[in-house]
């Protein structure tokens, strides 16, 4: 294990972009305003992965599927970290994250925001199909893929475009673009229990480290199944795509694992039967208004909105508000599980719908 860590630490990581080439690679990001809009999209993408991951996670029956549970939970936690990191970057360049508006909340089934619409993401129980979708979400970019600010094929290509734009506009803007109010930044004191250490983004370097953290946890380093977490004082960990692949293959990667080979380590049990048989893509519209399931779903959605409101306030100048979001996160879990224990029809149960409500 030490050998791997040394090898990885030896790799040159946060390579500075060549500024001359940056502008060309920014694509449609033509102004700081465009850049802010794309970072808002980044926040929306990170968030859009959470309802599907959490739904699959909470569909696992208590005391079963420990490996799948731990795995999906760890990915979901890292996505939450990514979402807040993206908010920090947006705040750093003077933007204002908006996380509680109607258009912020995705509808399922649907495409991920601003993607190339290659795959549909829905809300459903843990299943082989769900894992395939998760693999598509976390698909690593092929080596040498171009940056894609819009209609992206992989999240990595989207962030690559943002990274170029950050470099470019910071260089060409008098005084730089990192002029946001530092008191809007969240750090490890505000955020914990999920995915790694949150840090303030105050300059270009911080923003690149943040993007690298997001990408390496998600798709992995380009030539490795591992993420870069030892830089952040964490244990050796593998990237999301490969974590989901372990569930799919029912087998762990070894420390010698590589992206081009299936996992070859110990077997793990994934029991798709020990899962609540949830109706896919539940919606409050399926239930007669005022019925018990309608009320239960409405209550869930209200909790979800309260959580988004809390996060919105936290990333807009009230970092302390994030502490108050914690009980809401537990409520989301309890209420999602309660829905998945409630029979609906055709032998299926209801489930969390994650819908906008006011």
């Amino acid at each position: 294990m030490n050998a791997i860590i040394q090898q990885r630490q030896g790799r040159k990581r946060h390579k500075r972009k060549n500024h001359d080439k940056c502008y060309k690679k920014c694509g449609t990001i033509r102004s700081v305003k465009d850049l802010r809009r794309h970072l808002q999209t980044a926040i929306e993408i990170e968030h859009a992965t959470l309802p599907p991951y959490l739904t699959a996670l909470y569909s696992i029956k208590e005391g079963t599927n420990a490996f799948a549970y731990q795995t999906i939970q760890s990915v979901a936690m890292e996505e939450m970290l990514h979402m807040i990191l993206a908010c920090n970057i947006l705040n750093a360049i003077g933007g204002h994250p908006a996380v509680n508006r109607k258009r912020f909340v995705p509808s399922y089934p649907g495409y991920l925001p601003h993607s190339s619409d290659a795959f549909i993401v829905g809300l459903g129980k843990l299943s082989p199909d769900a894992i395939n979708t998760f693999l598509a979400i976390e698909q690593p970019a092929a080596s040498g893929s171009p940056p894609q600010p819009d209609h992206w094929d992989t999240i990595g290509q989207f962030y690559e475009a943002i990274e170029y734009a950050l470099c470019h506009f910071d260089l060409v803007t008098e005084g730089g673009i990192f002029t946001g109010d530092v008191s809007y930044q969240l750090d490890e004191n505000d955020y914990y229990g999920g995915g790694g250490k949150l840090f303030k983004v105050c300059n270009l370097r911080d923003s690149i480290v943040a993007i690298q953290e997001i990408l390496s946890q998600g798709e992995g380093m380009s030539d490795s199944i591992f993420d870069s977490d030892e830089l952040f004082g964490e244990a050796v960990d593998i990237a999301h795509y490969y974590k989901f692949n372990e569930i799919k293959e029912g087998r762990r990667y070894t420390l010698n694992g590589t992206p081009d080979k299936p996992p070859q380590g110990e077997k793990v049990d994934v029991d798709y039967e020990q899962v609540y048989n949830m109706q896919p893509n539940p919606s409050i519209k399926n239930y007669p208004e005022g019925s018990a399931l309608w009320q239960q779903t409405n209550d869930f959605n209200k909790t979800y909105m309260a959580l988004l409101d809390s996060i919105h306030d936290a990333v807009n100048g009230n970092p302390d508000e994030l502490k108050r979001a914690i009980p809401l996160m537990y409520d989301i879990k309890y209420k999602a599980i309660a829905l998945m224990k409630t029979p609906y029809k055709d032998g299926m149960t209801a489930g969390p719908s994650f819908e906008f409500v006011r």
Partner: protein
Amino acid sequence: MTEKNYDVVVVGSGIAGAVLAKVLTQAGKEVLMLEAGLTAGMALTPQDDYENYQSYLQRFYETTIKATNTPYPEIEDAPSINVLDIQAQTPYETGYMVQLGPLPFASDCLRAPGGTTMHWLGNVPRMLPNDFQMKTRYDQGVDWPICYDDLVPYYEMAENEIGVAGDVDAQQGPDMSRSNYGPDYVFPMDKIPQSYQDQVWMKSTNGLDVSLYGQHYTVNCISMPQGRNSTPNNDYRYANTVWDPASQSLILTTTDENYEVVGATWNSYTGERCEGNASCVPICPVQAKYNALKTLKKADTSKLDIITKAVASKVLIEPKGTDVAGIMYKAYTDPDSIEYTPHIAKGKIYVLACSAIENAKLLLASNVANSSDQVGRNLMDHMVLLTWGLLPEKGYPYRGPGCTTYIPTFRDGEFRKDFAAWISPIDNWGWSWPTFAPGSDVTNAVIDNAMFGKDLRSHLNADVPRQTLLHFECEQAPCADNRITISEKYKDHLDNFRPVIQYDASDYMRKSFKAAKHVSDQIFAANNIEDHTVYSPTEADYVTWDGQGYTFRGAGHIVGTHRMGSSADESVVDKNQRTWDHQNLYLVGCGNMPTLGTSNPTLTMTAMTYQAAESILKQLESNN
């Protein structure tokens, strides 16, 4: 099993053993650790670790009558004390301990990977300077061979390792102020927020004047330092305790980074903050509470061998001389079978770190380190007087961890010449300790009063949130006749000795119960708390003083069975915690404490263990 000759053989994987394993291996020493408990508890892969811990939780949730050791496996081959075995009438020999009386000893510890830190509460106040000089100051007990100032650097190491959350400036009371900690010292993490119930209590308790035997005392309520994760303190700059060969000492390194919060052993993202689950004892569901496995995980595993299911049975002495030659342990396969295979663990230095009870038992069984005849004697515990009542308003117990506030007012004073000092934690667990609430409230309402439905709910809602408890942990003074012995008559499954206990409460203690109840009455009155305290003659550890009866309970603070001292004829270990009789045998743990003070002893014991680790490293280096 192994022929390897280690630098150090450590018996036990509790906090003392874990600190030794971490410090010694990080200093490059080869360490063998023997652990009597099951292998699963030592799981080093996140997956196995998680699953094992979930099995602990499952057992806790599913068991109706929950005790401190409920979540953890019961093993015939390495039995743990079960507090539910405690009976009022002594002598008796049911359960693991043989209780000769006159009073039953009412505390337990856990024989499992991680030791008793798996079920401890996590309160970690330091001892007071006067606690180390009880003989000189108050003509009680004995003085320690070290003083508070000697221990301060090691307290800082222990607070770093445990990850203490607390407010140094709040630590104000008799013999305690900022000066106990030094001008700039802060704990690694901010204090855990004091509970809502604490705020209710504090309104009428802070600044309250109480009288006791003609003296007046001003009561104050302060935040409890605890080994439980909260937000890192931005001013804390210590990183890790390491061996510095140049100065031949342990030093705390500094860093520009913030304190790294240590989450669950299976997932560092779990338990990064206390979530207020309120089941700290016997098990924190997310491991926001410190346990020794967190420390053990940080050891240099390339230099550490751990053998589980290995019950140390005898300390072997060289045929010629007094050096320890090895530790015989019995390795079992099936935890409830009588079959075992004997092995001998060998090292240059041996350390017993398996609790005050097991250390003493092992020494007595081996007839070593006992030229002073002090092994097994001076068994101590905090004798806990509980008082409970109903608040005039809802205090909402069970919100937050077990204890976030305490009253330091009677931790020190001239009265210690006459009766025992105490610390008063304000507990957050309603009446659960004395009455098994809230379960018993449900049972009583349903069975005795035939309540159900809305009536039952509103009855519980009216009463349970008002239940409140105050508790008085009275410092037991050392007494040679409170002791652990062994007898051929009493052996366990593996033919190891069971502890045979003699125990009593002296007048010094009984007088303290009376004083504590008198103080409680005044605090209850000031808060308009309706007193529901009942001490019944049929209870275990019911004692009388001055015509009144009191029931005390065990605190789980088992201390003093192989005390340290300044001369070989009245103590078992010297101030370096090395046995006077054997130059390569050290003892660590609460057994070394000559007196108890009013602190929960783990922090002090951990600080002492750092001292012992330093002595061991010095000895190893000088022999090279």
